[in-house]
C-alpha cells in the first residue's frame, strides 16, 4: 500500500455556497488506501447532512477495513467482477441500509437520502461506484471527460433523445435524481473499473460544482493548476461561488503521479489462485 499512497495525490474542498445556510455535502479521503468518497445529502432540516455523513462514514470505514489482506484486482468467480467492485457494491449497500434504517426509526430523518460517488484506486485502475447526480470526471492529457452518468430525470431525457445536451442546460428539472441512498431498502449502485495512467487527474464533485461551472472552465483549472492540487480544488469552489454558488459545492481531486501496479509475485499469484 505504500506504493499506492506515494503514487496518488489527494486534495479536497467543500463549501456551503452563497445561498444555502448549511452544507449537506460530505466528503472523505483515505489516501493510504487510495479511496475518495463524496455524498450530497437531501432531506429537511439537517437530515441531508445526516444522510451524507452516514454514507461517507460507513463507506470509508467499511471499505478501509475490508481492504486489509485483500487483493483488489483478483476476480470474484461468482460475479466475474474484481474484488474492488464487490467491496464497493457491498459497502454502498451497507450505507444505504444504515440511512434507510435511521430514516425509518427517527421521524425527523424521514425521507432523507444522499447521492454517492466513490473512487477506489488499485493496481493502475480505479473502481468508480455512484448513485445519483454526483460525478466523476477525468482529465487525461488534453481530454476532460465525465466518466459517470447521472441517475437523474434530465439524463434520462437526454438518453431518450427528447432533449439535447445543449437544451438540458436550460432545464428546470436539474435537481431530480432517480436513484439515491437511503430512500429504499435496496439500492442499485452503478460500478465500473477504468484503467488509469500516470498524469491523470480525477475530479469527484457534487452538482453544486457541475451546475455552476462549465466543463471548459473545470478543464482549464485542472490543467493549469496541476502543480498545486489544493489550490485547484479551492479555485473550483471559488468559481462556483463567483457564478452564484446556489448549492453546496464539494470537490475531491486525485492526481495519479506514478504507476501503482499491484505486486504480482509468485506469492500473490498463489494466494489469488487459491481464492
Amino acid at each position, binding site marked *: 500500500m505504500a506504493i499506492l499512497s506515494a503514487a496518488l495525490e489527494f486534495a479536497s474542498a467543500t463549501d456551503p455556497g452563497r445561498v444555502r445556510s448549511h452544507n449537506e455535502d460530505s466528503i472523505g479521503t483515505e489516501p493510504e488506501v487510495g479511496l475518495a468518497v463524496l455524498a450530497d445529502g437531501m432531506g429537511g432540516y439537517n437530515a441531508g447532512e445526516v444522510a451524507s455523513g452516514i454514507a461517507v462514514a460507513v463507506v470509508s470505514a467499511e471499505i478501509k477495513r475490508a481492504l486489509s489482506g485483500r487483493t483488489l484486482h483478483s476476480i470474484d468467480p461468482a460475479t466475474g467482477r474484481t474484488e474492488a467492485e464487490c467491496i464497493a457494491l457491498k459497502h454502498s449497500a451497507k450505507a444505504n441500509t444504515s440511512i434507510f434504517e435511521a430514516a425509518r426509526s427517527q421521524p425527523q430523518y424521514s425521507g432523507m437520502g444522499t447521492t454517492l460517488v466513490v473512487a477506489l484506486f488499485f493496481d493502475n485502475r480505479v473502481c468508480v461506484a455512484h448513485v445519483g447526480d454526483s460525478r466523476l470526471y477525468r482529465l487525461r492529457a488534453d481530454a476532460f471527460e465525465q466518466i459517470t452518468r447521472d441517475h437523474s430525470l434530465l439524463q*434520462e431525457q437526454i438518453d431518450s433523445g427528447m432533449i439535447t445536451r445543449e437544451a438540458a442546460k436550460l432545464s428546470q428539472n436539474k435537481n431530480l435524481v432517480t436513484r439515491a441512498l437511503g430512500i429504499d431498502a435496496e439500492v442499485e449502485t452503478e460500478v465500473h473499473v477504468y484503467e488509469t495512467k500516470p498524469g491523470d487527474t480525477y475530479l469527484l464533485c457534487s452538482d453544486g460544482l457541475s451546475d455552476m461551472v462549465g466543463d471548459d472552465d473545470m478543464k482549464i483549472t485542472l490543467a493549469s493548476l496541476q502543480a498545486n492540487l489544493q489550490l485547484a480544488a479551492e479555485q473550483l469552489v471559488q468559481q462556483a461561488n463567483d457564478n452564484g454558488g446556489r448549492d453546496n459545492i464539494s470537490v475531491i481531486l486525485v492526481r495519479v503521479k506514478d504507476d501503482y501496479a499491484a505486486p504480482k509475485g509468485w506469492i500473490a499469484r498463489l494466494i489469488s489462485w487459491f481464492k
Partner: protein
Amino acid sequence: MAKLILSLDGTVMKEVPLDRERLTVGRRSSNDLQIDNLAVSGEHALIVTILNDSFLEDLGSTNGTLVNGVPIKKHILQHNDVIEIGKYKLKYIAEHIATGMQPAVAAEFEKTMVIRPGMAARAAQTGASPAFGAGPAATATTTQPGSAGQAASPITGQQSRPASAPPAAPPPPAARPTTQPLASATQSYAGPAPTQTNLQPQAPAAGQLLGAIQILTGPSAGKELELVKNLTTLGKPGVQVAVITRRPQGYFITHVEGANFPIVNGKTLDAQAHPLRDHDIVELAGVKMEFFHKGA
C-alpha cells in the same frame, strides 16, 4: 403551473394552462387547443410538460412553428418565449417565475430531490406534478414513443421496490407498478421551481475591464498578454508559477508552485490570493511585468 396566452394581432384571446402532460395544438377539434384557421395544420404542434419543463414540438405542420421568430422543430420553452403559429401568438409564462417567489423559498424548492416509481398517484392527488398523472395517463405515455413516459420508464424497471415504505412516504400503489410512468419528489413538492433559471456559468460582468500583462524585463520584454481567460498561469513550471484569476470583483494573483512567492510592487506575497490593481508591478521567476487595464 405554467400557461400559454393566445393572442391575435395583439388582442389576448385565451389563457391556456399547461395542466396536462401532452397538449396538442391544431385546426381540428380533436386538439386540446383548437385554432380554427387555414394557416394552421390539422395537427400542428405538441407541448409536453414534465414537472417544470415544457417541450414544444412541431408535428410536421405545413406552415411551421416559430419561437421568438425562429422556426423550430423541437424546443424547450423558456419564460416569455413567444410561439407563432400562423398569425396567432402563444406566449409561454412559467408561473413560478411570473409570480416571483421569495429567493429563500425558491432555494428550498431547488434542492435535490429523489423521484421514483410509486409516487405518481400522490403527485396527481396533490397536483404537484402536472405531468405524470396515474391511471389512464400512465397507459397513454407508455404507448407513445419518445414521450415523457417513455423517457422515464427505465426507472421503473431498475429500482427495487422497498420492502416497506418509510413512514412519511405514501404506500406504493398496488396496481400495475410497471406502467407507472414517473414519480414526484419524496419531499412534499408542492410548488414550482426557482426564480432564477440560468445556472450556467456567467461570463465576467460585461462592464468589467479587460486586464493585461506586459513583460518589462528578460528576453520577452515588451510582450503583451491579454487576460481573457478565467485563469492564466505565468512563470516557469518546476521553478515558479503563479496564476492570475479573472473574477467578478476583478483580477487576483495567487502563488501556485515554487519555493519563491510572487512579488507585487516590491512586496512578497503569501499563499493568499492578492487583488491586482492598474499598473501593479509583478515579479515572478526573476521577470518583471506590469498589470494594467486595457482601454476604458
